[in-house]
């Protein structure tokens, strides 16, 4: 039995009392890699912001390791849940090392002095995503794909059991997308992280991820195995696919 890490109970999300999606009941287990899909404006970012406690849930609860997520102290939560957003640091002189070192913030003292262990974690994180050669580069001068990897290294250095990534494939070319999926899978399997990420690349997700959460307006939140969701017509319904196109996807992927 997989270890439960994050669980929502009749969770409703939205802004200032205005519910966007309601009655979300899902579980994120250790080693899970789950893709969150749905059309724009359906509530993907809202769900991310709720999980990262940037906004409060409208109703229901989120449990992280059995505790109410909203009640966990920020400093403690920072050691449990790490995020990677589409937003990028844009300082002119900030180095890759500085960005990844920020991931150690929850573990350092008042002046942020890095211990030998912290330095080691930074190096290991960069190696894990395969960008240790970039350590002294200015972050701003990297390519989109490199920046993405460095931000993931930051999340790894943060050493949290859960990592959530908002649109990590958005600005990447095809090979980089494949590389990213492979990296996320490795993190889930080898580092036993629970990974949730949002994406638009439905075809790639059906191929390379096991589980999907589908969020759509005026439809109940759907969760399940990618192939099952495709076979039982949920994908077709939620994405408004034509019969022939759905059949094509079925033939190609299953």
């Amino acid at each position, binding site marked *: 039995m997989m270890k439960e890490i994050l669980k929502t109970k009749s969770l409703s999300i939205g802004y200032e009392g205005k519910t966007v999606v309601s009655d979300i009941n899902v579980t994120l287990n250790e080693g899970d890699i789950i893709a969150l899909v749905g059309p724009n404006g359906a509530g993907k970012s809202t769900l991310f912001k709720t999980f*990262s*406690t*940037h906004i409060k849930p409208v109703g229901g609860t989120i449990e992280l390791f059995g505790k109410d997520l909203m009640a966990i102290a*920020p*400093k*403690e*939560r*920072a*050691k449990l*849940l*790490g*995020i990677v*957003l589409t*937003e*990028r*640091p*844009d*300082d*002119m*002189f*900030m*180095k890759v090392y*500085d*960005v990844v070192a*920020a*991931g150690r*913030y*929850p573990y*350092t003292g*008042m*002046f*942020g002095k890095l211990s030998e262990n912290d330095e080691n974690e930074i190096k290991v994180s960069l190696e894990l995503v395969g960008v240790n050669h970039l350590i002294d580069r200015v972050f701003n001068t990297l390519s989109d794909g490199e920046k993405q990897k460095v931000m993931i290294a*930051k999340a790894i250095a*943060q050493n949290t059991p859960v990592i959530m990534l908002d649109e990590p494939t958005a600005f990447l070319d095809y090979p980089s997308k494949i590389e990213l999926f492979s990296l996320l899978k490795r993190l889930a399997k080898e580092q036993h992280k629970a990974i949730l990420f949002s994406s638009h690349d439905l075809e790639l997700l059906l191929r390379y991820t096991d589980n999907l959460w589908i969020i759509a307006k005026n439809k109940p939140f759907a969760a399940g195995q990618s192939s099952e969701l495709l076979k039982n017509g949920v994908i077709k319904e939620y994405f408004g696919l034509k019969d022939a196109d759905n059949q094509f996807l079925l033939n190609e992927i299953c």
Partner: protein
Amino acid sequence: MKNRKIVFGILGIIILGSILFILNLFVGSVTVPLDDIFKVLLKENTDNTLNVIIFNYRLPQALTALLAGAALAVAGLLMQTLFRNPLADPSMLGISSGASLGVGIVILLTGAISGTAVSSFGWWSTIGVSLAAFIGAVMVLFVMLAFSSRMKDMTTLIIIGLMIAYLAGSITDILKFFSLKEDIHAFVIWGMGSFSGVGTSKMPIFATSIIIGLFFTFFLSKNLNILLLGEMYAENLGLNIRKNSVIIILVSGYLTAIVTAYCGPIAFVGLAMPHIARFLFKSSDHRLLIPATMLIGMDMALICNLIARMPGFDGNLPVNAVTAFIGAPIVISVILKSRK
């Protein structure tokens, strides 16, 4: 290797500062020979006029420049990181104008209401002016903070800051209309900026207040560093955004307000010096940038004070004219470089 570069850089700035400090004692409408300066400082001098010039005028003025330069420069650094905007600085966000309005209310209204000029209240007027500058500055800071939490677009924020500055300026002008001549004169002189207003008597209060503020900034370096990632990341790393913003604004507002109260609104030091520190050390680490910005701010204020006091100007050149003359080209070059 990298650390050696940093040490040499810091040492260079300190040596330059020391030379400038001595030049500040040396140059003025009365040129004091270098030998005599050391004699005065070592208390071996018997010429009383020279003692007075150096101890009562030039030394406190140089010390004021040193402290004010450090305070304004580091306040600018804090604002630039908090607002993630290279053009943020206490004066640009309307903070100095807020301080001016506060001072204007105290200097100009007291005279209008009580019929006596504020300057005649002596020591109490200084406290009143400092407090008024502080309250004015902090109030504008909080208004700007309220706007900044509502909108992401920094250009809009700077425009709002400029508008607040105009608004404060117009209220100040209206106040002037109803004020006593002596008070208006005092206010205009205050507004031109000068490092000579502190003197020996107020130096202990001024120095202590500034040093306390400077001391606090060192504790902000860790939080400032992760703010560079953006608010959402910083929040996820466990930073309490709201509390942190309030602290940063309070510290920079406090420093700006004290300097503004004693020296008048001094522009461009807070805006330009952090950029020099960043470009010189090619770093974004506030553990280095905070002390480096302070030291560069000290050097710059000493240079400006020196130029304003060059023989021929007789100490009448406003410091603001000099800071803008040096600061504006620096800011332009920074913007051109960062747009590449």
